[in-house]
């Protein structure tokens, strides 16, 4: 796992445990009553094609800065406590976990909103790219306009 100066961010090839991540968000944290987590996984199909695997590439260095900036914006907009963002890279298979976003706050509203904001911005700002392997061969995924629209709502 690469050494990172951002303890809230991890870019890794290894899988992660939802239970372990929740435990870390809750550990010695008596002030926050809300813990909101999102986990993204590899689907078995995309646009009608059967997917067998995804290969994720990223831009080391920029990825961490981009995610740190998104987290910092979330902290300015909502009263949130702890944040953790994990994104896996390399080859992933159907059902594998790809991404985790965990946010805590005193009350649920802030954690819900901040979690969705972080995911929406990660989708359009963080330098990750997915290459799909399906029955049709290998193919780099195109960005979706709907992701831009979603992030523009914030």
């Amino acid at each position, binding site marked *: 796992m690469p050494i990172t100066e951002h303890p809230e961010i991890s870019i890794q090839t290894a899988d992660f445990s939802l239970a372990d991540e929740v435990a870390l968000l809750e550990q010695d944290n008596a002030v926050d009553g809300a813990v909101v987590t999102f986990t993204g996984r590899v689907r078995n199909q995309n646009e009608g094609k059967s997917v067998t695997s995804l290969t994720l590439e990223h831009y080391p260095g920029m990825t961490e*800065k981009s995610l740190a900036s998104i987290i910092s914006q979330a902290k300015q907009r909502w009263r949130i406590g702890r944040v953790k963002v994990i994104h896996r890279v390399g080859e992933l298979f159907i059902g594998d976990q790809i*991404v985790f976003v965990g946010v805590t706050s005193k009350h649920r509203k802030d954690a819900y909103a901040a979690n969705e904001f972080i995911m929406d911005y990660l989708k359009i700002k963080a330098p990750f790219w*997915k290459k799909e392997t399906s029955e049709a061969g290998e193919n780099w995924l195109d960005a979706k306009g709907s992701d831009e629209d979603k992030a523009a709502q914030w």
Partner: protein
Amino acid sequence: MIKVVFFAALREQLNCSELSLPSEHLTTVAQVKAVLAAKSEQWQQLFANGSLLAAVNHQMVNNDFAVNAGDEVAFFPPVTGG
């Protein structure tokens, strides 16, 4: 010198992940792009793609952003993480 890096589909299509360019006469991202596009017909076509994104020193920027000696300039397709 300016270090230029490429990612994802663009990296594969160029068959190149990084190169260095002399920094004289290069003052903007657009100029870096023009020098790269002049390399071959294929590079010209790839850099004519208006959806390509650029970053300077890990910061997403526009084409008129200034570049300086020692900078790392990156070009890549729209991102698809998450």
